[in-house]
């Protein structure tokens, strides 16, 4: 298993390198620089800024400088926030986004799997349509609609929970996690329903019934592990997607996360921040896809054999 993980990580290096290169030249080809401002900046000031940030060098030299700094772990200074380095800002934003993403996935899995399993027990009956319908709401109600709605009902009218912040006050993590999680619940519900339907038709489920086990034992103990394989495959890209997907929720609930950097950097032409967030996102995709595959082989012992695990 270790060899498999090492193999995948080795493959990741060329992928990261290409992502960095493509993004670097893509970013520099978009008109409008980081220092263009409504208040025209004097030529002298512009010259000073460009030389400070080495923007006056030819592009390929800037690229080599950037790679040099990157090798030593320095993601460079942020153009928009002169006093801050990109690494520092990502480090400041990452915990909140990661935590938000984690809780959102818990919500998505909780709602998704339960409605998927309940629906799969009696397909094409009311017990199938209602939970799946509920899960579908997650798709019809985007975050920028669900968030304000929850705030209005639970935050302002019922005053059960704070309407903003992350960690500052008790209960301020509930609404953001629900908002972000609901979107993914629908996908998880459909995938777990499909997975469970597939598993429930297998012969070994008949063996389990023939052993006289209780229905919930049959479904949860024997069925769930097999039924969740498609969900696990979906988790990899989904969790990486949370990094960017949380932008809307972070602005709706004023959460000091990473999502906003990812979007605002593009508008501010904050080159180093765009590179920093892109590298983080690329690394996240590779790591989470790998984690999903490892989790899948943890669930399905047959996969372990092909990945050097097992005997």
């Amino acid at each position, binding site marked *: 298993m270790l060899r498999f993980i090492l193999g995948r990580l080795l493959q990741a290096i060329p992928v990261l390198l290409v992502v960095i290169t493509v993004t670097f030249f893509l970013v520099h080809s978009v008109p409008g620089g980081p220092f263009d401002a409504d208040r025209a900046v004097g030529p002298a000031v512009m010259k000073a800024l460009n030389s400070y940030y080495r923007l006056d060098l030819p592009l390929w030299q800037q690229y080599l400088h950037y790679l040099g700094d990157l090798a030593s772990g320095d993601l460079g200074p942020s153009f928009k926030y002169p006093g801050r380095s990109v690494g520092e800002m990502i480090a400041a934003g990452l915990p909140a986004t990661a935590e938000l993403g984690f809780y959102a996935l818990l919500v998505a899995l909780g709602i998704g799997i339960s409605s998927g399993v309940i629906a799969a027990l009696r397909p094409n009956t009311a017990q199938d349509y209602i939970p799946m319908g509920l899960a579908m709401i997650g798709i019809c109600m985007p975050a920028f609609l669900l968030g304000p709605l929850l705030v209005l009902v639970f935050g302002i009218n019922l005053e059960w929970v704070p309407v903003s912040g992350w960690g500052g006050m008790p209960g301020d993590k509930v609404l953001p996690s629900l908002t972000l999680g609901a979107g993914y619940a629908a996908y998880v519900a459909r995938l777990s329903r499909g997975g469970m339907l597939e598993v429930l038709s297998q012969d070994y489920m008949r063996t389990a019934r023939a052993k006289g086990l209780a229905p919930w034992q049959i479904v949860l103990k024997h069925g769930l592990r097999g039924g969740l394989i498609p969900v696990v495959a979906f988790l990899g890209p989904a969790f990486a997607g949370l990094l960017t997907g949380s932008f809307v929720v972070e602005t709706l609930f004023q959460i000091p996360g990473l999502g906003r950097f990812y979007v605002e950097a*593009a508008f501010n032409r904050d080159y180093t921040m765009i590179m920093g967030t892109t590298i983080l996102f690329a690394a996240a995709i590779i790591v989470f896809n790998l984690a999903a595959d490892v989790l899948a082989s943890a669930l399905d012992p047959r996969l372990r054999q092909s990945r050097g695990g097992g005997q």
Partner: protein
Amino acid sequence: MSRGLWRDSWRRLRRNRPALLGAGLLLLMVLLALLTPWIAPFGYEQQNLVLGATPPSPSHWLGTDVLGRDMLTRILYGGRLSLAVGFIATALALIIGVTYGAVAGFIGGAVDALMMRLVDILYALPIMIFIILLMVLFGRSLLLLFLAIGAVEWMTMARIVRAQVQSLRQQEFVEAAVAMGLPPERIIARHIIPNTLGPVIIYATLTIPSVMLLEAFLSFLGLGVQPPQSSWGLLISQGVETMEEYPWLLIYPGIALATTLFALNFLGDGLRDALDPKSAKD
């Protein structure tokens, strides 16, 4: 995809009530979208500043927005755009994704590893910058928006189709086709792809809503649809801002989007069952 398969699928689909309901609703939406220029009561830009936002009334069945424009017209035109984005971008994602996935899955080995690494790279590229660049280089056009969104969505489709093709490849009827001396491209086209339709349809019915919402997100940021044109996603995001003052600005586009997505969902399930001869119980 011979005539036979479609004829039988249609026969099976007709028997699946929810799928029929879904198909009917979807057809209604598409019809309304196509007939909009003739049936829309007002011009989509026609403002009545003095009027402002008014609740549904005989003259304006679904009320008016903050600039006094008729909401029914806005929703119809918005529908045109949302459905267009949904179908075209998904179709694009479908075509590229299915072919790419089928080729990667069928050939396997180093080629497959390379193609999948390319997908990883494309996944990681920052779509925001990518879309701004497209907007700037090629100017603002809706077609461009569809292409941009389509270009972002096909990777997941490719991954799903690849997994499906890898399992199909072990099936003996593919070996039989190879034994028959058919070239790879013909095997992929006539034997592999028709058998990946099940999961592809299911995922397509999931892609259409996510594409519509991605368009809403981009328009919310000013990169997507250019006002005065509008889309359901944009109408909803604008409606949210005045949710308490003028609830109808949010409710009606919300209903339009919800019905379309539910219809898609039921139709998708129905199509998947209809196209899978094995599952037909008769």
